[in-house]
């Protein structure tokens, strides 16, 4: 697997090489096409030496040489450059040689010349060595042996360059100065000039020849090549971008240390490297010979190459950062932002408040300052500052209000409530989350509790089913046995015990299910408007016979008007039935039983009072416990669940159930909210 070639990377590197090549070609082509020179000549397919460019440059060189001679003549004693002197003495005088060399260097070019002052008979030339040994004639010969020459002798121009002959020279456009032309016309000088056949030096003539030849050779193809190259270059960009950061060794983008430092520092490093490259490029000068030209170009290329590398270095790190989404995070601005945020996060909210307050005061002072010195912008700034401050404060107050509201709800038992953390300001998000967790925990705990109560009820219900079936047989066969004509007092007594106990067991199983259902709330309530007077009349009617049997007299105190409560009709009867049945069982025979319906401000209270048959040596709390009855013995009917069921059912319906004991006085109050 390691040997596998990472194609994106390879393609990217190839693209890096191709990119500058294509770009250079493109630039050259564009330069070529946009070069205004000699379009006509190129079209006609003329040779370089027949073009105006060549003629103009040649002419410029000729007049430059004349200027040089005039300059030398004006600044030196006339004798120095006499014909004889040059011939015999040569250039032994270093200063003069240097002067000439200066011109030679300065105008260092492919045009060689010999100019003779006809008045002083002094000769001037840019050919350095031939003056030492050769005669004027030799110099003339050297010049004339080149194919393209231009001579001026006795007012006659003799030339092989058509554009510079007598008829045309006046129309040469570029660089010609009237002064120089007049110098020639004045017939003071005899001039011999020629263009070196091999164009040994890098000057305008040579450069233009290269340019002209290139232009004429590429101009046809360039029109098609340019769009093609542009497309190629554009196509390289995505290839490079895809390849950046990919390695053979691992999937994804590989970041090195350079990709982790701040973007600005990376940019600075790249700029520094680029600057080094730029120094190379700038340092090059004086490329007037072919050798120095090649050397100079090489140095420039190296410089450009270094700059190119610097560009690649920066480009790659930027692309890699963008790909891994780390660009913003590695900028200096983000770094500062992060530091400030970290600082703010760590300090306490109280200290933060002080910080904000100081900031506000400072901003306020600045605003007032501006307001005082410069009215309207200051006013706008102040309004803006106050607006921002208001929004800042109101957001926090809103969050606080929401939290306090939620805590209040939670306190009131609404565990389903939840704060939307995203709507909170940052400082309070954590608190909001913690409150949500608390609410969730409470809600879960309550749910668990309810669930376990439900399970308990279910268990009790199921067990009671299983008890009921054998119990059915017991009750039925005891009954059948009683119907058999059994002799013996004891047998009959035992049978009666069996009968009463099996009946009690039956009642117990029923009450057990009901008690567990009532206490776990697994009861479906059907709440409606009940008339309490009617209810008490109905129930007391139901129990009148039983009370009579026990010689109990019920005295009911009704309110003047009908009073109503919101409750479940069936379960309300169950509550009262339990109470009345308790009274019939446990009230002392021959006493009065009081039932009062009392109207209070918002409540209706049913009070049942009776005198207990037995001594009530038991507390109210104990009495309310399941399976506890007012008497010590458990021989009578009843399960002991009556009070517990009554209380649970009352509370389920939203009422209050209380028991008061005062000596043998037993009082029960059932209180409900009054309904209109």
């Amino acid at each position, binding site marked *: 697997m390691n040997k596998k070639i990472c194609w994106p990377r390879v393609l990217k590197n190839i693209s890096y090489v191709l990119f500058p090549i294509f770009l250079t070609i493109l630039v050259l082509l564009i330069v070529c096409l946009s070069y205004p020179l000699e379009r006509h000549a190129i079209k006609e397919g003329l040779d370089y030496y027949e073009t105006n460019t060549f003629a103009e440059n040649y002419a410029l060189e000729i007049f430059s040489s004349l200027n040089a001679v005039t300059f030398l003549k004006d600044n030196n004693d006339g004798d120095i450059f006499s014909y004889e002197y040059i011939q015999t003495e040569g250039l032994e005088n270093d200063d003069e040689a240097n002067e000439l060399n200066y011109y030679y260097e300065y105008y260092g070019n492919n045009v060689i010349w010999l100019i003779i002052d006809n008045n002083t008979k002094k000769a001037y030339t840019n050919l350095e060595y031939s003056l030492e040994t050769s005669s004027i004639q030799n110099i003339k010969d050297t010049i004339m042996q080149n194919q393209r020459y231009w001579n001026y002798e006795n007012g006659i121009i003799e030339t092989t360059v058509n554009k510079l002959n007598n008829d045309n020279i006046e129309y040469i456009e570029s660089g010609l100065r009237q002064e120089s032309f007049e110098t020639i016309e004045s017939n003071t000088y005899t001039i011999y000039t020629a263009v070196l056949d091999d164009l040994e030096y890098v000057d305008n003539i040579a450069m233009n020849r290269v340019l002209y030849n290139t232009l004429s050779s590429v101009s046809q193809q360039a029109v098609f090549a340019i769009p093609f190259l542009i497309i190629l270059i554009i196509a390289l960009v995505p290839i490079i971008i895809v390849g950046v950061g990919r390695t053979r060794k691992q999937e994804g983008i590989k970041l090195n240390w350079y990709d982790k430092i701040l973007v600005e520092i990376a940019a600075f490093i790249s700029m520094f490297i680029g600057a080094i490259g730029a120094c190379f490029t700038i340092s090059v000068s004086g490329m007037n010979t072919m050798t120095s030209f090649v050397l100079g170009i090489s140095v420039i290329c190296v410089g450009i190459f270094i700059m190119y590398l610097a560009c690649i270095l920066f480009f790659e790190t930027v692309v890699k950062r963008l790909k891994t989404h780390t660009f913003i995070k590695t900028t200096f601005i983000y770094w500062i932002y992060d530091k400030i945020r970290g600082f703010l996060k760590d300090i306490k909210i109280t200290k933060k408040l002080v910080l904000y307050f100081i900031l506000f005061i400072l901003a306020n002072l600045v605003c007032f300052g501006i307001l005082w010195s410069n009215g309207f912008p200051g006013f706008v700034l102040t309004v803006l500052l106050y607006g921002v401050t208001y929004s800042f404060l109101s957001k926090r107050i809103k969050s606080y209000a929401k939290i306090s509201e939620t805590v209040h709800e939670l306190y009131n038992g609404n565990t389903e409530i939840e704060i939307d953390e995203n709507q909170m300001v940052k400082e309070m998000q954590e608190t909001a989350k913690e409150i949500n967790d608390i609410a969730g925990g409470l809600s879960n705990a309550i749910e668990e509790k309810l669930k376990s109560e439900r399970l308990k009820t279910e268990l009790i*219900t199921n067990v*009671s*089913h*299983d008890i*009921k*079936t054998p*119990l*059915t*047989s*017991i*009750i*039925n*066969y005891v*009954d*059948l046995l009683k119907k058999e004509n059994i002799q013996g007092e004891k047998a009959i007594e035992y049978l009666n015990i069996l009968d009463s106990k*099996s009946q009690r067991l*039956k009642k117990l199983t*029923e009450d057990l*299910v009901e008690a567990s259902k009532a206490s776990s709330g697994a009861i479906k309530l059907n709440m*409606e408007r*009940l*008339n*309490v*007077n*009617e*209810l*008490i*009349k*109905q*129930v*007391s*009617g*139901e129990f*009148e*016979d039983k009370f009579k049997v026990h010689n109990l007299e019920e005295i*009911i105190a*009704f309110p003047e008007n009908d009073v109503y*409560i919101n*409750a479940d*009709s*069936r379960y*309300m*009867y169950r509550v*009262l039935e339990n109470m009345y049945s308790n009274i019939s069982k446990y009230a002392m025979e021959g006493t009065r039983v009081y039932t009062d319906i009392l109207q209070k401000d918002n409540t209706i209270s049913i009070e049942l009072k009776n005198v207990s048959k037995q001594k009530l040596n038991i507390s109210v709390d104990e009495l309310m416990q399941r399976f506890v009855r007012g008497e010590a013995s458990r021989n009578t009917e009843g399960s002991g669940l009556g009070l517990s069921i009554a209380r649970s059912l009352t509370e389920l319906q939203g009422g209050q159930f209380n028991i008061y004991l005062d000596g043998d006085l037993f009082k029960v109050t059932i209180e409900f909210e009054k309904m209109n």
Partner: protein
Amino acid sequence: MYNILVCDDDKEIVKAIEIYLSKEGYNILKAYDGMEALEILKKNSDIQLIILDIMMPKLDGIETANIIRKDKSIPIIMLSAKSEDYDKIAGLNNGADDYVTKPFNPLELIARVNSQIRRYTSLGSMVKKEKDDNIYKSGDLIINDSTKTVEVDGKEVKLTPTEYNILKFLTKNKGVVYSIEQIYENVWEEESYGAENIIAVHIRHIREKIEINPREPKYLKVIWGIGYKIENLD
């Protein structure tokens, strides 16, 4: 002699029911699960009542009742230890005519059996009576105002004149709930003084006479805290 099919997986319970009902003069056929009950039904077309337990192996009571109801209208009494409201509703919705919870009172069971048998065998004769203007009825509660007699499930019931008047008033207006005060004003035709619970006592007595189980009345219903009504069973 009427044939009753008793079906329960508890053999002792079946046996006990057999003893009770035999004494009443019924012929008992026994089955111990739903499948057996269906087979007996297939063989004997002359069965007037079925007593069916719910929790049984193979085929439970609810499904058995469903299957029987597809082609037979024999009355079915469900007998079950399940005593929740929704159990009763499920039983009655699946073809049962009555629902008795275990452990049952033998006398109550016998009364219900008698009632169902009477209903089932004398159904034709009731239709005639309905046309009379002086007849008030709800289901099998029939009051004949001409003869001042009350019949429940084909059996005559003796009521005192006051009880009779209250029952007649409620049956005339069956389905409507009346408070104690309204009943008083309508039956006595004088203003009520409010404190009477005498109506409640009478109602209690009527229930004891006309209902098989006064605690779970079929005809005379008590809506606690609101009033009383005769259930409209037609």
